[in-house]
């Protein structure tokens, strides 16, 4: 099937070349970092040692995990509406896990030693488990998506042996994001991160941001190809995102209550820093204001059925929710965990250009993989789509 990725219209090739260029730029910037040192190429410091890249890990693991939202109803509850986009969800997960794994890889000061994580496997370190669950999830999604698509190409039902792997992937999805939450939740000196709600909150944000991205991708697929992921499926995704978004906002409220009712300074300070500024440091306040505003615009649109169902407003809301959560989880959450520092001082951090370009390179790797996989999936599905009920797609 891979050959299907080699035939495409000029705009496909322009997009692919753009991604490859971004990957090369990212790679050069990353090499530069190792040459002159992270002091000049990142916004990081002694006090804030994790920043933008770790944020990308956190965010994209979530988007990857959210594939379960289309896979589970389809394979587990026989929800046929998701038949057409199950593979789209699985392939999105593949690309996002790749972004997540590369995002950890690029923060390493000594990337050539990365094998030490396996050579000296350390079960009490969460990074070890994160690596294990991510690699497993990547393989599972690639295997399941590919096999099911292959069967579709031959107009046959998926082989029986793939079932256990599909169920395994379903169980695995929440675990990848839980383990990622554990990277933060168990650190004694970081009260902002140390909440038992962390994993649940991560899943809520993931289940809002992931479907939002799927909505946008589905609309794009509809525009550029003859394959239609299905209006009903897109509407359902918006519903799921609505519930998840509400839970996310509710969880933020819970964090605020716990911090401010208990009045424990260490638990309040990071929140104050984020939303109001601490001791004259307020670099993230406008950032959080925009993130909050976007979340509420998304919420209002999603909550009213006519607005949610109309495709124009739906896409706007999906974009708002996606970026709101990206801003929060993909940067602010990580940085604010380090504020204040162990000496009760504030050191702020920002995204450096070099750092951003490295991240853009990493996103491009993910986007390239998703593009290629989607190209294959769409070409197969454009011809004929048989879901497990043998329902053929109607191409308008």
């Amino acid at each position: 099937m891979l050959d299907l990725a080699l035939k495409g219209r000029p705009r496909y090739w322009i997009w692919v070349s753009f991604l490859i260029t971004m990957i090369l730029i990212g790679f050069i910037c990353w090499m530069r970092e190792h040459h002159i040192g992270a002091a000049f190429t990142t916004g990081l410091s002694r006090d804030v040692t994790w920043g933008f890249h770790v944020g990308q890990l956190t965010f994209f693991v979530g988007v990857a995990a959210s594939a379960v939202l289309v896979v589970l109803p389809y394979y587990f509850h026989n929800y046929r509406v998701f038949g057409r986009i199950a593979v789209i969800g699985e392939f999105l997960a593949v690309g996002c896990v790749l972004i997540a794994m590369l995002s950890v890889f690029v923060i390493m000061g000594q990337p050539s030693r990365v094998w030490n994580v396996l050579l000296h496997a350390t079960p009490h370190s969460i990074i070890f488990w994160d690596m294990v669950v991510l690699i497993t999830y990547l393989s599972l999604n690639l295997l399941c998506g590919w096999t099911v698509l292959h069967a579709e190409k031959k107009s046959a039902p998926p082989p029986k042996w793939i079932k256990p792997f599909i169920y395994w992937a379903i169980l695995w999805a929440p675990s990848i994001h839980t383990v990622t939450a554990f990277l933060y939740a168990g650190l004694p000196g970081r009260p902002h991160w140390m909440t038992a709600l962390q994993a649940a909150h991560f899943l809520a944000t993931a289940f809002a941001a992931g479907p939002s991205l799927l909505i946008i991708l589905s609309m794009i697929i509809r525009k550029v190809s003859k394959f239609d992921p299905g209006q009903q499926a897109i509407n359902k995704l918006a519903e799921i995102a609505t519930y998840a978004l509400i839970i996310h906002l509710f969880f933020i409220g819970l964090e605020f209550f716990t911090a401010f009712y208990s009045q424990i300074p260490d638990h309040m300070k990071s929140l104050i820093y984020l939303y109001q500024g601490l001791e004259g440091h307020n670099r993230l306040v406008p950032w959080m204001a925009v993130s909050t505003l976007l979340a509420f615009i998304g919420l209002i649109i999603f909550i009213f059925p006519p607005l949610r169902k109309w495709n124009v407003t739906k896409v706007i809301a999906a974009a708002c929710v996606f970026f709101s959560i990206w801003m929060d989880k993909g940067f602010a959450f990580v940085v604010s965990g380090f504020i204040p520092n162990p000496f009760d001082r504030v050191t702020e951090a920002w995204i450096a250009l070099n750092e951003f370009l490295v991240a853009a390179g990493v996103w491009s790797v993910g986007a390239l993989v998703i593009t290629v996989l989607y190209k294959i999936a769409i070409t197969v599905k454009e011809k004929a789509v048989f879901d497990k009920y043998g329902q053929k797609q109607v191409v308008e």
Partner: protein
Amino acid sequence: MITRRDFLKIAAFSSLLGLGGAFTINALEKEPGQKVLKDIKALKGKRWAMVIDTRKFKTQEDFEKVIRACHKAHNVPEIANPLHEVKWIWTDDYEHSFAGTAEEYISTEVKERKFLLLCNHCDNAPCVRVCPVKATFKRPDGITMQDMHRCIGCKFCMAGCPYGARNYNFLPPRDYIKELNPEYPTRTIGVVEKCTFCNERIDRGLLPYCVEASEGKIIFGDLYDPNSEIRKVLSENIVIRRKVELGTQPMVFYII
């Protein structure tokens, strides 16, 4: 449970301390001006700890002597920018050293005192727990070690340490060493480093550099030995530790 690997480590280590250690002590005692650990016996029950008598540090020079002794001997790069500096032992004021537990109405004299800060060699060290490659590990005698050749530079330990005691080499460290000590290795960019209680000296029966340079203001010894000097000092003075409430069990005590 002791694994075979641990057993070998302990065996190797105790032979170093027991036999080799005794040998070097004898050899070194002849060298003038070098203070020697008296309580090196067997590995069993040993837990190194440090007491800093903050009352005795009076002048800036008192601190500088100590810091210089450590940083010079360990080739610690001198980076001026506080955002990216590397420091194994340094000072801060009362309020920030004991952030969270500092008393507002304590005497002005204490408030104005400076406190020596370094890795606490916590008994229950979060930095060890989170390191994915065992580049940060515990020796059986309580020292939290840092293997600069295995560290992958993920900086997880820096998020884990509640004491700000770890340093990441954001810059090529060798460019910032003024006076090179050829006896001690230098580091590369992209790895983490920190105080190691001068494990290289302890293994030879010598006191850590800072203890030696402090001329009695810092007491070092075995916490598990009821007859050691450190136990005597601890029982006779009021001491505080940084962020005990986190359960990390810091092994550096401060006499107030």
